[in-house]
C-alpha cells in the first residue's frame, strides 16, 4: 500500500493563525489512518463511484443539451460531444493516476496543491467550488424546464408574474436540495445509485428503439441531414458549450478519500463513467437529430428530448423522458452541491478558507456552513437564467483544473518524489497528458466572451484571496 510517511508537512498559517491539518499517516484499501489509532472508514464502492460520475454528468448531456447543441452545430453536434468525451478521457487518465497516488478528498485541488504548490491549488480549489456552483445552477435551470414540461403535459400552464416559471421552480428546487443536504440523514447514496440505474435503463430502452428506428427497421422515413449542416467552427464552439456534460468524473476524485480499494476503484470509476456517458451522448444526439433533423430539434430548446421520446414511442416515450429528465437534472444538481461542499472542506482543512467553513452542525452532523456556501450562490445564479453562460463558466473553471491536472502529472513524473507511487500508471505519458492539457485550454477560446471574462475574473479573485488570506501556507509535497 502507498505508505506516505516520509513526506513534508504543510507549513505556514493564514491571517487568522490557522494551520493546515496534519496529513494522515497511512492510506489503506479500507481506511485513511491517522496516528493514535484514529481511522476514517472508506465506504463508497465501485458502483457508488460510478454512480457519482455518471449521475453528475448524464443530467446535462442528455436532457438539456441536445436541442441547444443541434441548433448550433447540426447533426455534427454528435462530433462535438465526441470531442468533449476525448478530452475528458485524456484528463480522466492522469486524474486516475494522481488519485491512486493521493487517494484523498479534494480531487483536483488536492493533486494540484500538492504537486504544483499553494497558489495553483488555491486557484483550482476555489475555482472548483465555484465551478460546481455554476454547474449546479445550470442543472437546476434544466430541472425547472423539466418541471414546466411535466406540468405542460398534464395541462397546467404556470404564470408566475414577470419571472419565468422554470426559474422559480429551479430556485425552489435549489433551496429544497440545500435544505435537504443540511437536514436529511437518509441514505442519499443508495438513492443516487438507484436513480442512476433507472436512468440508464430508461435511456438504453429509448435509445435502442431510436437507433433501430433511425436504421429504418420500422420502415419510417428518418430525416436526412447534412452532417456539417452549420459548418465546422460551430462543432468546436458547441464542444466548448457541452463540455459541462463531462465534469462529473472529477467529482469522483473529490470523494477519493472515501472510496474503498482506491487503487482499483478510482481509475475504474473515473475512466468508466467517462466512457459510458460519452457513448450515451453520441447515440442520443444521433438518434435525436435523425428523428427530427437538427433545425427542428434546435427549436425545442432545453427539453428537446421529450419531443424525441414522444416521436419515437408516443406518450409513454414522452413520459419516460420527462421522468428521466427530472431524475437526471435532480441528481446532477444534488451531486454538484455535495461536491462543492467537499471542496470547501478540502480548502478549509488546508487553512485556505476559514476553518469555520467546514464546521459540522451538531444536530444533523452535516456541514451546514459549506452547504450554505454552495447553496446560496447557486440560487443567485439560477435567478440569472442564462443556461449557456452558467454551463460555460462551469466548464471554463473545470477546464483550467483539467489542464493543471495534466501538468501536475507531467511534473510529478519528471520530478518523481519519494511519495509518488501511483498504483495506476496511465499509458502514453508524456504525450497524452500534454495533449490533454493543450486540448483542455484550447476549448476555452470557443466560448462566449462573457463566459471567458467571468472565468478569468474568478481565477483572479481566487489568486487575490490566496495572496490576502493565506500567502504563507505551503502545501507542496504535503501528503
Amino acid at each position, binding site marked *: 500500500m502507498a505508505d506516505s510517511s516520509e513526506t513534508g508537512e504543510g507549513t505556514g498559517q493564514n491571517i487568522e493563525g490557522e494551520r493546515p491539518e496534519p496529513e494522515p499517516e*497511512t492510506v489503506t484499501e479500507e481506511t485513511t489512518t491517522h496516528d493514535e*489509532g484514529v481511522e476514517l*472508514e472508506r465506504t463508497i464502492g465501485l458502483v457508488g463511484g460510478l454512480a457519482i460520475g455518471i449521475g453528475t454528468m448524464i443530467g446535462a448531456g442528455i436532457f438539456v443539451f441536445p436541442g441547444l447543441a443541434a441548433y448550433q452545430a447540426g447533426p455534427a453536434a454528435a462530433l462535438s460531444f465526441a470531442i468533449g468525451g476525448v478530452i475528458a478521457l485524456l484528463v480522466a487518465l492522469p486524474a486516475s493516476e494522481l488519485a491512486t497516488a493521493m487517494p484523498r478528498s479534494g480531487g483536483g485541488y488536492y493533486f494540484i496543491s500538492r504537486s504544483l504548490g499553494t497558489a495553483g491549488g488555491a486557484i483550482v480549489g476555489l475555482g472548483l467550488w465555484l465551478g460546481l456552483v455554476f454547474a449546479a445552477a445550470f442543472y437546476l435551470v434544466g430541472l425547472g424546464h423539466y418541471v414546466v414540461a411535466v406540468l405542460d403535459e398534464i395541462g397546467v400552464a404556470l404564470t408566475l408574474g414577470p419571472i419565468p416559471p422554470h426559474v422559480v421552480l429551479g430556485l425552489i428546487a435549489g433551496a429544497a436540495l440545500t435544505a435537504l443536504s443540511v437536514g436529511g440523514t437518509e441514505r442519499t447514496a443508495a438513492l443516487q445509485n438507484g436513480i442512476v440505474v433507472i436512468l440508464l435503463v430508461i435511456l438504453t430502452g429509448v435509445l435502442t428503439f431510436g437507433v433501430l428506428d433511425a436504421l429504418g427497421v420500422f420502415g419510417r422515413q428518418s430525416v436526412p441531414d447534412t452532417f456539417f449542416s452549420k459548418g465546422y467552427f460551430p462543432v468546436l464552439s458547441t464542444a466548448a458549450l457541452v463540455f459541462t456534460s463531462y465534469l462529473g468524473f472529477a467529482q469522483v476524485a473529490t470523494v477519493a478519500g472515501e472510496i474503498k480499494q482506491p487503487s482499483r476503484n478510482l481509475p475504474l470509476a473515473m475512466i468508466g463513467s467517462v466512457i459510458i456517458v460519452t457513448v450515451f451522448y453520441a447515440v442520443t444526439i444521433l438518434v435525436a437529430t435523425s428523428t427530427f433533423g437538427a433545425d427542428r430539434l434546435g427549436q425545442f430548446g432545453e427539453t428537446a428530448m421529450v419531443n424525441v421520446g414522444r416521436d419515437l414511442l408516443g406518450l409513454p416515450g414522452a413520459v419516460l423522458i420527462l421522468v428521466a429528465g427530472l431524475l437526471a437534472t435532480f441528481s446532477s444538481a444534488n451531486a454538484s452541491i455535495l461536491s462543492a461542499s467537499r471542496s470547501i472542506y478540502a480548502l478549509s*482543512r488546508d487553512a485556505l478558507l476559514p*476553518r469555520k467553513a467546514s464546521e459540522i452542525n451538531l444536530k444533523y452532523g452535516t456541514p451546514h456552513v459549506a452547504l450554505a456556501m454552495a447553496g446560496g450562490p447557486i440560487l443567485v445564479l439560477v435567478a440569472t437564467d442564462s443556461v449557456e453562460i452558467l454551463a460555460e463558466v462551469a466548464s471554463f473553471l473545470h477546464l483550467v483544473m483539467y489542464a493543471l491536472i495534466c501538468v501536475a502529472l507531467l511534473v510529478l513524473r519528471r520530478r518523481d518524489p519519494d511519495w509518488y507511487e501511483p498504483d495506476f500508471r496511465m499509458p502514453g505519458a508524456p504525450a497524452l497528458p500534454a495533449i490533454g492539457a493543450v486540448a483542455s485550454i484550447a476549448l476555452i477560446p470557443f466560448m462566449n466572451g462573457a463566459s471567458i471574462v467571468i472565468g478569468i475574473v474568478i481565477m483572479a479573485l481566487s489568486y487575490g484571496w490566496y495572496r490576502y488570506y493565506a500567502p504563507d501556507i505551503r502545501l507542496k509535497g504535503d501528503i
Partner: protein
Amino acid sequence: MTERPSVLVPIRVLEDESLPEGTTELLAKAHVVLLGYHVIPEQTAPGQARMQFEDQALSRLDAYEELLVDAGATVDQRLVFTHDAQQTIDRQIAEYDCLAALVPRALAAVEDVLVAVRGTVGLDRLARVVGGLFADRGIDVTLYHVTSEDESDADVEVLLDGVIDRMDENGFDTDHVDTRTDRDVKPVDAIADLAETYDVVVMGESDSSLSTFVFGMPADQVAERFLGPVLVVQREPAADPEASDADDQP
C-alpha cells in the same frame, strides 16, 4: 493457563453512549478492542468530522480505557469515523481477529451466565470465550440448547458434554456448569425469556440466511429483548486471502 479472549466493545462515543456499568468487571479477563465510532451522514466527509470531534472522542475513549485497565483488562483502542457502522465493526472484528463482540449494556454483577449452544460449529470459540472470561471467578454458567426435531436427547448430551470438555480445557471449573434443554420452542424467544434471570448472555453469530436477512440475526433479536449485555461469539474468519488484504496493523 488460559489466553485472554479478544472482545470487541463498540461504543458510539460521541452520542453519549458510555461504557455501561459493570462492563469493566465483565471484561476484566479479556483483551478488549475498544472501538469508539461515530456515524456521520453521507453529506459529511469523515475527515471533516475528525477535525471537529477527534479530541473530544479520544479523551472519552482514554477514560474508558483507563477504567478497563484498572479492572484488569488489556486494551487496544480505535476511533473510527464512518458512514457505515456495520462495515466498521465487521472490519475491526476481522483485523483484530476478535473472538466475540459485546452488545454493551449495563449489568449489576457477573454471577450467572447463560450460554446458548446452537450446533457443533464454533463450539471451540464459544468455549474459549466462556473459559477465558469467566474461569476461576465463582461464576455459574448454564449451557442452554433448544433441541430440534431431528435431534435425539443423546445427540444433545454429546453436544453439551463436548462443550463442557472444551470449557474444562480452557480452565473452567466444571462444577460451575449446568445444562438445560428445551424442545418445541422458538430458540430466540426461549433464549430471550430465559435470559431474564441471568446477568449475561453468550451466544454464537449465526450464518446469514434468508431469514436472518429478513428478521435480523438471532443474536440481534435476543439483544433487542434482553436488557443486559450479550456477547456474540464470532464465526471463524473465512480463510480467503482477501480478508487479510488490508491488514497492516502496527
